[in-house]
């Protein structure tokens, strides 16, 4: 049977985390793939992680992005809820020539490896991390390959 493809309906859910003091913006899930997006200062990421931990979310991954033209690096924390459709993104921007963010490893032990990997690729230092040694690169590596000015 032939059926015409239907347009994807936009899905902006009401914010289930509106009671938290986090500046969330609701996002169209069908267009972007996540529900809530917040941009915070680097010194607030641990508090954000603790509040999301209390809500029962799990850490999905930590991504670094090198915005060389703007002189900044971005650290994106993705969280997901294991029981309901709730994808939350917390972002922070740090200066590129001195990239430091506190570690959220004490809240989510899974962040240990994600932060080591982000450090490998970008050189971002996670303050308080117990073991910020190369994870995917050789043990003696001093280069950060995903920086936009990296040449091998």
């Amino acid at each position, binding site marked *: 049977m032939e059926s015409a493809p239907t347009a994807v309906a936009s899905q902006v859910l009401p914010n289930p985390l509106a009671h938290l003091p986090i500046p969330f913006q609701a996002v169209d899930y069908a267009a972007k793939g996540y529900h809530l997006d917040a941009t915070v200062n680097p010194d607030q990421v641990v508090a954000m992680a603790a509040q999301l931990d209390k809500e029962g979310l799990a850490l999905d991954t930590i991504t670094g992005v090198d915005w060389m033209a703007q002189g900044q690096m971005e650290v994106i924390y993705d969280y997901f809820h294991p029981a309901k459709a709730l994808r939350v993104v917390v972002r922070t921007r740090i200066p590129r020539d001195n990239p430091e963010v506190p570690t959220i490893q004490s809240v989510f032990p899974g962040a240990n490896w994600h932060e080591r990997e982000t450090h490998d690729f970008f050189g971002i230092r996670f303050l308080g991390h117990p073991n910020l040694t190369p994870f995917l*690169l*050789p043990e003696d590596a001093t*280069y950060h*390959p995903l920086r936009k000015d*990296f*040449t*091998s």
Partner: protein
Amino acid sequence: MEAPQDNAQILRDCAPYIKFAKLDELLALGRANSLWPLTFGLACCAIEMMAAGASRFDLARFGAEVFRPSPRQADVMIVAGTVNKKMAAAVKTLYDQMPEPKWVIAMGNCAISGGPFVFPGQYAVVEGVDKLFPVDVYIPGCPPRPEALIEGLLKLEEKLTGKRRWPVVKAD
């Protein structure tokens, strides 16, 4: 006591019961028909290597199903997968630990020349395992089919004995 017989006559009389050959050829035949590979699957090609050892393609027919985990008990190292700069030292150590005579089969494009992971500015992949040690047979493919791995083993056997044990199958 009988008269001493002609040596050529003795050989003709013994021929149905005793075969003579050069020791080198015998050893080469023995080695070729019982190549013991090292379990060295690094990445995707390892699955095709496992499939070659499993039921349908059956490396046991060629004497090569005894994969040894220890390099000191293996004759041939089938490098199946991408060799990384972090892994290169370990690969070289494994090669050095294998006792002579030893051979290397580079299976897959990554082991031959770095495969699909070569791009300008690449920082992690060793472009071909022959940059580390000599390779005897190259099997191209990404990943090569198990039949290609078997053909590579037959080519290695041909290199050892000088003769190919399985005729090349040509399409009609």
